[in-house]
């Protein structure tokens, strides 16, 4: 028997695979061959060591780790094949979280982008809408025999309205508010820190602005919707009467304004001083005009204040000029000659008509402060 054949017997002997005869042949050869004897000892040692390999154990119970993922039928029996894939549970969960995290992140980024783009594109649209609305309102007011029929506002009401406008403007500047602030009184809301606009955009509350226009003193009325949303609703609500219309207009933030009107922002937010409002000699409000349609030059020179008492339209020389309470000029019209008298009628807080009564005829002009333009009618 060759040494190579004996080596095979050595291997088989390690596995107790030899017959008695084969075992006898192996032992006989080993007695005669020292090399094979050494090799056999080495293999025996190796096999002994292999049998002593440490019995490793899992660090945690694998069964416990997969139990939550093993489906159970309603009757408590095994739901065969309900674990859809024989995949690793721990790694799969970890990897899934990575994947879902990426998906969530991507979705959030997309949503943010979409909202940003919506705001970006809708803002000019709203401004355009408002300008159009303002023009329509002015036209409407023009058709209604309302010259001189403006509602009568006391100084207190004017102050309250100014406050409301200020508050509303601030809301629109602050942006949107969380839905949780539904019960917040109006006056407190402007102090709520700005938060994510998404909930309000996705879940707008029913519009309450019309009520607000009808009843301005309901301080606790619902104002949960975003300022942006509210502005839009204000525009869309039909106005039932001139008073409501005026108030709604007062609530509306000014549209995108030309450079000259951007200077109005700060004064518009300021509450006029009562003394200035109540000084009828210095400022004649619209109701004064109503009771005295024919305003002489002297009165026009003193000026006629806007409904919100912020601007004063007055004649300087033979030219219409609009200034704010502090004397800052916002509009200067065309010069005219030939004397005559002038009557002034405010249509809205930023639009008015003035009529120049010449001896033989009269000219009627409409001034729009946001555009800084006047137009002959």
């Amino acid at each position, binding site marked *: 028997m060759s040494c190579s054949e004996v080596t095979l017997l050595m291997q088989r002997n390690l596995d107790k695979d030899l017959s008695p005869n084969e075992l006898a042949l192996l032992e006989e050869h080993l007695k005669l061959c020292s090399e094979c004897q050494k090799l056999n000892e080495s293999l025996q040692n190796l096999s002994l060591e292999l049998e002593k390999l440490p019995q490793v154990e899992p660090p945690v119970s*694998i069964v416990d780790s997969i139990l939550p993922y093993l489906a159970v039928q309603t009757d408590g*029996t095994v739901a065969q094949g309900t674990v859809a894939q*024989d995949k690793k549970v721990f790694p799969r969960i970890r990897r899934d979280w990575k994947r879902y995290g990426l998906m969530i992140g991507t979705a959030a980024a997309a949503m943010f982008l979409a909202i940003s783009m919506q705001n970006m594109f809708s803002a000019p649209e709203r401004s355009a809408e408002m300008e159009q609305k303002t023009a329509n309102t002015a036209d409407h007011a023009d058709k209604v025999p309302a010259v001189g029929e403006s509602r009568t506002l006391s100084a207190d009401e004017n102050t309250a309205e100014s406050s409301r406008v200020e508050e509303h403007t601030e809301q629109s500047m602050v942006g949107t508010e969380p839905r949780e602030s539904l019960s917040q009184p109006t006056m407190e809301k402007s102090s709520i820190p700005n938060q994510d606009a998404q909930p309000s955009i996705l879940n707008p509350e029913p519009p309450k602005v019309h009520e607000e226009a009808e009843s301005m003193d309901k301080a606790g009325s619902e104002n949960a919707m975003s300022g942006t949303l509210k502005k839009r609703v204000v525009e869309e609500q039909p106005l039932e009467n001139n008073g409501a219309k005026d108030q709604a207009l007062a609530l509306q933030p000014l549209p995108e304004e030309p450079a000259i009107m951007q200077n109005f922002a700060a004064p518009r937010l300021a509450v006029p001083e009562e003394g200035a409002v109540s000084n009828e000699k210095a400022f004649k409000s619209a109701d004064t005009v109503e009771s005295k349609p024919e305003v002489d030059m002297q009165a026009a020179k003193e000026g006629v204040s806007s409904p919100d008492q912020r601007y004063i339209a007055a004649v300087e020389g033979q030219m219409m000029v609009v200034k704010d309470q502090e004397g800052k000029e916002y509009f200067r019209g065309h010069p005219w000659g030939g004397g005559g008298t002038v009557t002034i009628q405010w249509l809205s807080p930023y639009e008015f008509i003035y009529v120049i009564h010449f001896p033989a005829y009269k000219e009627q002009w409409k001034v729009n402060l946001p555009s800084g333009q006047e137009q002959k009618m």
Partner: protein
Amino acid sequence: MTEPDLIREAQAGDRDALIQILRNIEKSVYQTAFYILKNEQDAMDASQEALIRIYNKINTYQEKAKFTTWVQRIVTNICIDHCRKKRETVSIDEHSLPLEDKANVESEVVRIDMAKEIKKAIELLPDHQRTVIILRYVQDLSYHEIADTLQLPLNTVKSHLYRARQQLQGLLQDYQKGGVRI
């Protein structure tokens, strides 16, 4: 309850019996996976996958085969598949790491015990040889059972086993020579 009884109960739909079976085989499944895959994390992954597969496939088990063989077939298939996938992504440089270990082992042999030397040597074996060694010495399976587990011809199993022992012997002799020299 004996293993055959548990299996019958589990196949009849008794979830508790099936969970008990999984608990009984958990350790052996992990051991095989650990020695084939060479690290704890991969072994845990493969063990989970194997146990879930056993949970789902318990009704496909037939008593004519030894249950241990059936279980080991599942786990070794998963492990070998894992090795194959890993090999496809492992660079040649990473393959050469065991050889570097072999070169360095001369200075380490006197400091590590024999079990660690053997474990290192086993890790150097080709997948099938390593698997056969594990089934033979860790799971204490016979030639036939290993052949049944790996679904290989009996002679192929013997060939893998003999070659594996020869290679291990050669590796360990190198270690011992290094140790003697130091």
